[in-house]
């Protein structure tokens, strides 16, 4: 869901860039040097996720994982996503310099909101944890798709059709993202809860050992 260069009018590009810059500043302020490594890993997985193609019926889509980043990083998702998108722009020319602000805002604002809505549910038992992670993964993608098509539609009435197609095509991705986020968060809570910088429900260790061995072998 990258918006390409030269598509949107300058006013939207500029205002989104300013909003993103604000988000990145807050994120950088909240990021302490000890967490840079964990952030870099998540940022790298956001980058790699877009290279993993997953079958959805007859076509294939790619993962986004921005909900996962939101749950684990909060506001720090802004700098993390900015860095990953900059690398994608430099290496693959997805998006670019002038649309970096729009793309960062579209991908990073939803996870930050999800962080505030779903994080409290993560420490209220295993079922609540899975539910929260599922909803977070799903709504982050849904909201990102909504924002992307929204900015596209703001570009003028002529973009309305493109925006609608974009929105509808991301519905299957939402469900899959939700499923995958739920499993990943459940797994991490069992196997390495220290990866989260807040308290999280940790299911009993016997099950954790079983799951980790079945996944590695």
């Amino acid at each position, binding site marked *: 869901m990258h918006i390409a260069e030269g*598509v949107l009018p300058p006013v939207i590009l500029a205002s989104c860039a300013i909003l993103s810059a604000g988000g990145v500043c807050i994120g950088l302020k909240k990021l302490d040097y000890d967490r840079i*490594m964990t952030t870099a*890993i998540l940022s790298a997985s956001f980058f790699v996720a877009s290279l993993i193609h997953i079958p959805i019926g007859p076509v294939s889509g790619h993962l986004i994982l921005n909900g996962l980043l939101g749950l684990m990083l909060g506001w720090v998702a802004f*700098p993390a996503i900015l860095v990953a998108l900059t690398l994608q722009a*430099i290496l693959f020319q997805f998006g670019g*310099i002038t649309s970096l602000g729009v793309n960062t805002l579209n991908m990073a604002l939803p996870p930050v909101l999800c962080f505030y809505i779903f994080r409290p549910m993560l420490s209220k038992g295993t079922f609540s944890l899975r539910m929260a992670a599922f909803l977070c993964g799903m709504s982050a993608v849904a909201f990102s798709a909504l924002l992307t098509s929204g900015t596209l539609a703001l570009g003028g009435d002529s973009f309305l059709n*493109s925006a609608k*197609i974009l929105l509808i095509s991301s519905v299957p991705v939402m469900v899959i993202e939700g499923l*995958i986020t739920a499993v990943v968060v459940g797994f991490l809570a069992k196997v390495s809860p220290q990866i989260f910088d807040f308290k999280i429900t940790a299911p009993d260790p016997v099950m954790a050992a079983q799951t980790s061995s079945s996944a590695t072998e």
Partner: protein
Amino acid sequence: MSLESFAEGTSPFHTMDAASKVVAATLFSICTALLTSISTACVALVIGITLLCIAQLPIKTLCRRLLFINAFIAFLWLTLPVSTAGTPVYSLGGFTVTQEGIDLTLLITLKSNAIITTFIALLATSNVTDIGSGFAKLHVPQKLSLLFLFTWRYIHVILEEYKRLSTAATLRGFIPTTNSHTYKTYANLIAMVLVKSHDRAERVSNAMKLRGFDGTFHSLHRTQAQATDAVVAAIIAFLGTALFAADYFQLTELL
């Protein structure tokens, strides 16, 4: 898979200082994004293609990359000409193609490709590590430059780890299809990759602290900034600004 497929080469752009290239590419892209007339956008595209010729990149990879990026543009060609109001040119079964729609899409195509070609010629010809230290030179916040460099490092670690695990899954007869088993397998794979990379990062972080890491990296192959780099960057930035001025004051209509 080689991620930095354009960074190997000996053209003038490959040896240029990354910081000056970042500045030139940013200014040129912003100016091009602001263009409103097809004639100036054409000139911008010509400049972009000229820069690409100077960069001497492998033609095959370049064409594949450009085709791939233009997929989004192709999607716009399918929807924009019929959904823009204006003078009808051609109509078929309820859909009317308008002149305004075609002009708008053409403008977007030209601008988009002009920016992308400049971008590839200038930035894709640098190592990511050099660009990272270029950011530091341009006074990008230290945490952000560090995050950039570490992310670049961990992309390789994660890709490698992911490939190893997915090869193992394939060997055990895992065939991805549309079902929850596939998605669960992928999710477990991703979670396992995250756990392993996190453990590794923790070790690296501790080792770095032990050696007195103070937040700065010392690159081994640092490209020395030369006076010519600044001049080339200034010329590219000037071309962009001149184009924008020509477009804004509608100089092309005077010709």
